[in-house]
């Protein structure tokens, strides 16, 4: 994909360079594994300190500080410590890890090996979703190549440190992206998430051993932190939002795709980089960080107080494109999967589409999630099919309210947030919809296609 001049590429620096291949020779020709060579001469704790100082935050969804996560690892248990790279990439709207794994797998392996060395890990896993079969093959091949050169396996670079990486394929279940569901799956079980406490992976993770779970993009950044130093890394982006982020933009823009950027606003990304809406259309709303995140409505003002006491008052396009910026607008940057909804998109139909997703993907352990997501699918579906009932909007809010915060894992919020936020911002559309679409003569073809749930 063509690189936009406003991009600042770090993780995807070489991925789209003409002639660059996933083979180790390409990576080595670009200084690949130099940071691992540096790492094995360092004190492991010094690497952890550097990652902490960099303020790197997780790129998988929650944005948790990476160095802090590593510092929670129980190092006194006497049990082995495991590291798992989360390459489930199943949050709708997200397609960045796919680029890294298919185009520059060695960068991920180097990032993992640095992280493993820092945390005294002797066995690491890459959990990759089943729907990326070539990605799994590319990673297997890359690990073989890295082993031949002494970057992975026994006695890494003659340092006396040994660590193996195993690629593990999922089987098409979204919940395997949730870290404790992932761990259960890797243990050969159903991916039923575990309850926290006590099952914090850093203490009781894989095989009840201390375990680090990090996203693909997060782990790649370990390479760049060693390269730029924590201070250099922090120069990219606003304070507390250090480094670049790969944004995945899909839906109603002229140039959908993945874009790695430093500091910029949401408007710059959507209008300048992605070319804005299609001709004759306008942007209605944006789901900023994967389908689980709350929707942002165009035309709304986003107001509040900055940490320094000053006030902000933003339109959609002014929102700073980072963790804190999007949080200040009431949503989350999540996985970086941005879905743009233009004025042709019916919000209730979009919600029906997502509720079909969530009811299909609930692992079924918690009654509110299992029953609630199915109920929400049925209600949104009957709205789309012209059988809405007057009480449906209130009923949906009631059901969503009974899921949020009452489940084992954060999937419950992922079901409730779209319902609550879409109704809060587009209530008129839902109510009008219910009334209008009971009309037996209404043309429902387009909305049925958008809901796409049979």
């Amino acid at each position, binding site marked *: 994909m063509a690189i936009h001049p406003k991009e600042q590429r770090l993780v995807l620096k070489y991925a789209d360079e003409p002639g660059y291949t996933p083979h180790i020779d390409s990576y080595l020709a670009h200084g690949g594994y130099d940071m691992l060579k540096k790492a094995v001469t360092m004190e492991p704790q010094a690497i952890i300190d550097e990652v902490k100082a960099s303020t790197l935050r997780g790129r998988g969804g929650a944005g948790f500080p990476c160095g802090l996560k590593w510092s929670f690892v129980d190092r006194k248990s006497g049990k082995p410590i495991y590291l798992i790279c989360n390459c489930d990439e199943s949050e709708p709207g*997200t397609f960045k890890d796919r680029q890294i794994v298919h185009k520059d797998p060695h960068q991920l392996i180097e990032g993992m090996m640095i992280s493993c060395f820092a945390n005294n890990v002797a066995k690491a896993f890459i959990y990759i979703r089943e729907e990326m079969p070539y990605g799994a093959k590319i990673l297997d091949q890359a690990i073989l190549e890295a082993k031949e050169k002494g970057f992975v396996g026994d006695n890494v670079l003659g340092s006396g440190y040994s660590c193996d990486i195993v690629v593990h394929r999922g*089987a098409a279940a979204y919940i395997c992206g949730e870290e404790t569901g992932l761990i259960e799956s890797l243990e050969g*079980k159903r991916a039923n998430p575990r309850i926290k406490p006590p099952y914090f992976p850093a203490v009781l993770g894989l095989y009840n051993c201390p375990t680090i779970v990090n996203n693909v993009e997060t782990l790649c950044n370990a390479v760049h932190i060693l390269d730029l130093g924590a201070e250099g890394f922090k120069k990219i982006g606003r304070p507390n939002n250090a480094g670049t982020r790969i944004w995945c933009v899909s*839906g109603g823009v002229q140039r959908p795709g993945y874009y790695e950027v430093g500091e910029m606003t949401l408007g710059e990304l959507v209008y300048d980089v992605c070319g804005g809406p299609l001709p004759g259309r306008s942007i209605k709303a944006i789901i900023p960080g994967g389908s689980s995140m709350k929707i942002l409505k165009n035309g709304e003002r986003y107001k509040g107080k900055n940490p320094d006491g000053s006030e902000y008052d933003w339109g959609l396009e002014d929102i700073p494109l980072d963790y804190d910026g999007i949080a200040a607008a009431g949503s989350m940057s999540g996985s970086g999967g941005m879905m743009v909804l233009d004025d042709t998109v019916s919000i209730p139909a979009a919600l029906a*589409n997502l509720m079909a997703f969530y009811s*299909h993907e609930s692992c079924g352990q918690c009654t509110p999630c299992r029953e609630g997501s199915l109920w929400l699918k049925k209600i949104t579906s009957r709205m789309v099919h012209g059988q809405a009932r007057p009480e449906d909007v209130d009923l949906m809010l009631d059901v969503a309210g009974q899921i949020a915060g009452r489940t084992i894992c954060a999937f419950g919020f992922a079901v409730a947030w779209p319902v609550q936020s879409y109704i809060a911002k587009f209530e008129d559309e839902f109510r009008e919809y219910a009334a209008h679409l009971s009309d037996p003569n209404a043309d429902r073809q387009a909305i049925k296609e958008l809901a*796409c749930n049979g």
Partner: protein
Amino acid sequence: MDLKPETLAEIEAAIPKYPEAQSAVMPLLHAIQKDQGFISNEAAEWVAEKLGIAPINVLSVVTFYPFFRQHKIGKRHIRVCRTLSCAMAGGSKVCDKMLAEFETELNQVSPGGEVTVEFAECLASCGSAPVMLVDEDLHENLTVEKAKEICDKIKAEAKS
């Protein structure tokens, strides 16, 4: 169990990769499903025996994960993404075209046995929506016309 030699080799290579044998359930099921097309009860029992776990622990995995199946499907496995970005880009029409071309319905083996068409959830390629998987191959930026071309190719390959 009548497994191909390469399947058996894959299975033997997978087990020692894991600190605990049960972790190899999914790789074993992947290998067997590729070999046999689906996971029979016999296969589930074989995996259980191989890993020293109870058959129920294998079956509970088979029945949890959408990719593992207990029945035969068509020669080619077609999965059209149905999630929002693909739906906004016309994924539904692409799916309808696939079904019409093979005179079949969702999740059924087509009358000629060529395909089984299913919906899939977000395939992590939303920037080139709509997309679908034909077995292991991802097809991007689909249109009804492109879908027709893919169908023609599958039909031609099914005949030869």
